[in-house]
């Protein structure tokens, strides 16, 4: 018999065996009998009237089975792709919500917008037929940037959305902020861009759909982070398929980062097509296709002002942001730059008054939605950058100004002026830990060493907090969520004592099969190897909201914890019956039910066996079986945070920024598996490094062409871009989650961009540089240096 491996241990991952041996089961690996191949025809224009589609030549091509267009969608009376959030402006007016047809009707609004779907015997035949489809476009001017899109003379995407503004959203006490600015000793101002990103999980999106006429049932295999939500959105709102007739399976999924947490039109088209052609249909995106169809992230233009008193205390913070939504509203789209942004502008500071205005803007670009961090990296970047600007302008040390404004550990729970109440935290403790770990006191020596080689070394701080564990449904509902954000888990104890857990979160790299098994092993005292975690199949798992927003352990783990408590409670009833004792006298500890004060007891396995052999059961009070289910809806968000310190070196000859050292001390609450937490921090930090130094989705204004449309144009971080990072945790326990956990999936991505850019600015501050926009590419830095106040690299 194996061992209990519980909370705080670092067993090797259960999921690794299949991945290490090439035996994972990703959607693109699946083959179905009689399978056909589907290819999407996508708009090559950013903005155009769709005048006509001539299918005749394409239909006559070899192997073609069907060609579907927006007219077919309309003929079949299918719905528009739904948005899961409905936000309102300051006056309570709902956002503009134009329809998002799964295949374009009348107009195309971004390069990549879907125009037709070709089904053929083979992918090659589908590709060849797609080339023959004649689409008549009347090309219109495109607008891709938010500043341009809100101009009065800008091209209009929708007739009924003036100035392309979806919603003019605000948060906070505007009058209090204005009053505070009037009495400020100093006002720091900063204009910045939060660069547009493309998530690029290594597995491209893919889907297979199958229809069984005999049972009228559909199965969709899809690369999704939330199969139950896809079942609901697609079945109930788009295709009118009853929920009990639709199975959605998300098997092994090769990374998500938010990109796979939306209901995509491709899923709906393929499922619909499978019924029309009465054969399974498979589509696998190429990477190029992913670039123009995976939802993008970030893309803000922001003006921020921080009011301070003469001692450097923050009096008020005012932020105005234009946020790019792309051509349509994606599943979470309008929620990201509003509800997940404004409430984080307090950061770890005691700023008493905050006002935030966000204009959510349509443009001729891929729809923008959540990408790892989603709103919180943008908020953190604005705040942590302007804190550095203020410190520099007032001549206060950057660490000192943070200390003067930080929420002390004793002040938690802490109510911010922007909705959220932090339950716990110790930002000062994280800062102190990071200062030591990063060896800040010897930075001067290292800087001098760099200078002696003609290089500029800089140090950057980011002391941040985020809100995750999405989400308390009551709170989310008030903010505009159209669904709940709870999670569910079922714990099935087999007659032999092994355990299968069915959970509504989705594991696509986070190690849930291991972490969740540790929770069950610890709580029930069963061997780690005797627990399996099932996820990603609506026919096997009762319900679930999926994995995003660092919610799996926080919300799903809590549901699992509740369900195991119910198993223990039922086990006590069974034990009381078997041991002829009162239920209140039964104790459960280390996998054994016993009568208090006696040596009489039953093992967990004995109770499990008895549960399924109910001879002599008091059936009127005790049901056979040992399987329990729980739903958990959190009472608050969780608030992980920490301190990140980046150390960079700039080569003035080339403008190259090299990340030399990176230190993170994060408060993620209780750590279930430290090995997995460290891995999440590493990966998260490097996605932030990508945003800060390398990644940028660039569109051509006017034509709407994506200029960074391949991995040769869009620079992803590689192994040789990075140093060995130092990551550590300094945890305070969440006061409202059952295990004290806070979530760790996004903290790295949230904390890191500001730390890195603050380091780059620090390296160049002697040249009068006060801000650098992301990504800090060699080209951008070199140009900056050419215009800087001091001569560099003069030869």
């Amino acid at each position, binding site marked *: 018999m194996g061992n209990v491996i519980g909370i705080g241990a670092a067993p*090797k991952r259960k999921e690794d065996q299949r991945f*290490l041996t*090439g035996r994972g089961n990703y959607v693109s690996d699946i083959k179905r009998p009689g399978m056909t191949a589907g290819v999407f025809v996508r708009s090559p224009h950013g903005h155009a009237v769709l005048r006509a589609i001539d299918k005749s030549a394409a239909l006559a091509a070899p192997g073609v089975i069907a060609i579907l267009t927006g007219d077919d969608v309309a003929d079949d009376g299918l719905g528009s792709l739904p948005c899961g959030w409905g936000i309102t402006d300051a006056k309570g007016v709902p956002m503009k919500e134009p329809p998002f047809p799964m295949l374009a009707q009348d107009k195309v609004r971004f390069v990549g917008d879907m125009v037709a779907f070709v089904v053929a015997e083979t992918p090659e035949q589908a590709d060849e037929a797609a080339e023959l489809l004649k689409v008549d476009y009347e090309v219109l001017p495109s607008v891709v940037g938010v500043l341009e899109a809100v101009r009065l003379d800008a091209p209009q995407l929708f007739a009924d959305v003036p100035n392309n503004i979806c919603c003019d959203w605000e948060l906070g006490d505007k009058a209090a902020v204005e009053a505070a600015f009037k009495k400020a000793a100093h006002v720091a101002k900063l204009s910045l861009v939060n660069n547009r990103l493309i998530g690029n999980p*290594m597995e491209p999106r893919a889907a297979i759909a199958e229809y069984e006429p005999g049972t009228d049932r559909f199965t969709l295999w899809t690369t999704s982070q939330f199969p139950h939500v896809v079942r609901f959105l697609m079945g109930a709102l788009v295709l009118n398929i009853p929920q009990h007739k639709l199975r959605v399976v998300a098997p092994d999924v090769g990374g*998500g980062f938010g990109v796979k947490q939306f209901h995509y039109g491709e899923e709906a088209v393929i499922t619909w097509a499978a019924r029309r052609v009465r054969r399974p249909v498979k589509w696998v995106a190429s990477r190029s296709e992913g670039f123009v169809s995976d939802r993008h992230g970030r893309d803000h233009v922001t003006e921020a002002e921080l009011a301070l008193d003469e001692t450097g205390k923050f009096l008020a913070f005012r932020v105005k942001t234009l946020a790019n939504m792309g051509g349509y509203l994606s599943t979470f789209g309008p929620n990201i730059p509003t509800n997940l942004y404004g409430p984080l502008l307090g950061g770890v500071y005691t700023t008493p008054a905050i006002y935030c205005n966000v204009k959510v803007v349509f443009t001729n670009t891929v729809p923008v939605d959540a990408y790892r961090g989603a709103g919180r990296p943008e908020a953190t970047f604005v705040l942590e950058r302007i804190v550095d600007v203020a410190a520099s302008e007032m001549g206060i040390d950057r660490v000192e100004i943070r200390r003067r404004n930080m929420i002390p550990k004793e002040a938690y729970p802490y109510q911010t002026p922007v909705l959220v109440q932090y339950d716990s935290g110790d930002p000062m403790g994280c800062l102190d830990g990071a200062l030591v770990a990063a060896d800040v006191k010897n930075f001067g020596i290292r800087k001098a060493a760099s200078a002696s080689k003609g290089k500029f070394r800089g140090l950057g701080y980011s002391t941040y907090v985020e809100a995750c564990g999405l989400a308390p449904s009551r709170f989310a509902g008030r903010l505009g969520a159209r669904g709940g954000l709870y999670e569910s888990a079922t714990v099935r104890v087999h007659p032999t004592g092994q355990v299968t857990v069915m959970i509504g979160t989705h594991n696509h790299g986070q190690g849930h099969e291991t972490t969740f098994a540790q929770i069950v092993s610890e709580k029930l005292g069963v061997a780690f190897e005797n627990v399996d975690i099932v996820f990603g199949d609506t026919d096997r798992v009762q319900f679930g909201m999926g994995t995003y927003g660092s919610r799996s352990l926080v919300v799903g783990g809590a549901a699992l914890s509740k369900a195991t408590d119910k198993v223990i409670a039922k086990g006590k009833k069974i034990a009381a019956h078997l041991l002829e004792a009162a239920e209140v006298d039964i104790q459960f500890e280390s996998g054994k039910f016993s009568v208090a004060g006696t040596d009489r007891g039953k093992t967990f396995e004995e109770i499990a066996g008895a549960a399924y052999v109910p001879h002599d059961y008091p059936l009127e009070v005790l049901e056979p079986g040992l399987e329990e289910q729980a739903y958990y809806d959190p009472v608050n968000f969780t608030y992980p945070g920490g301190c990140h310190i980046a150390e960079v070196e700039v080569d003035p000859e080339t403008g190259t920024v090299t990340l030399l050292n990176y230190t993170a001390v994060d408060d993620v609450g209780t750590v279930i598996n430290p090995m997995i937490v*460290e891995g999440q921090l590493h990966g998260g930090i490097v996605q932030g490094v990508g945003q800060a130094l390398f990644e940028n989705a660039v569109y051509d204004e006017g034509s709407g062409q994506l200029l960074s449309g391949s*991995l040769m144009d869009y620079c992803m971080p590689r*192994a040789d871009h990075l140093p060995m990072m130092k990551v550590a945790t300094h945890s305070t326990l969440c006061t409202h989650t059952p295990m004290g956990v806070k979530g760790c999936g996004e903290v790295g991505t949230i904390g890191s961009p500001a730390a890195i850019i603050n380091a780059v600015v620090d390296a160049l501050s002697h040249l009068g540089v006060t801000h650098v926009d992301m990504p800090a590419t060699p080209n951008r830095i070199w140009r900056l240096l050419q215009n800087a106040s001091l001569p560099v690299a003069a030869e």
Partner: protein
Amino acid sequence: MQISFTLNGRSTTVDVEPATLVVELLREQLNLTGTHIGCDTSQCGACVVHLNGLPVKSCTLLAPALDGANLLTIEGLQGAPGSNRLHPMQEAFREHHGLQCGFCTPGMLMTAVALAAENPNLTEADVRHGLEGNICRCTGYQNIVVSVLAGAAAMNAAKGE
């Protein structure tokens, strides 16, 4: 056309269209789906296999080039011959949490094994440079680098035995 080659130690003869890519042959015709496709510009390295002992991106190689060659894919990577044991590099990735979603993992492993075979004295810088053609979006590479160094040491130790 008909081609014959050694695939994971077994002689194999298949009929292929001349324009078939090796990765397509493996995944679609031979049902060896461990070799992955992560891009269409030969950038990501998810499809790396060993051709005559050298790492190649199977998305840029036509199937006819396999005729007479020796091909090793992730499905054929293993420890001591004939056993079911993991290769030391696979063990190292498991031990050091060198994988998360698993999608880049087969290509990473094949590249790593070739790196270690080629250079018995790998440094961290060598590993980082050697993995430049393999993209991982999950791990930040840190634990992959640690894994490759550990796996290479284990391969050296096994050679010395």
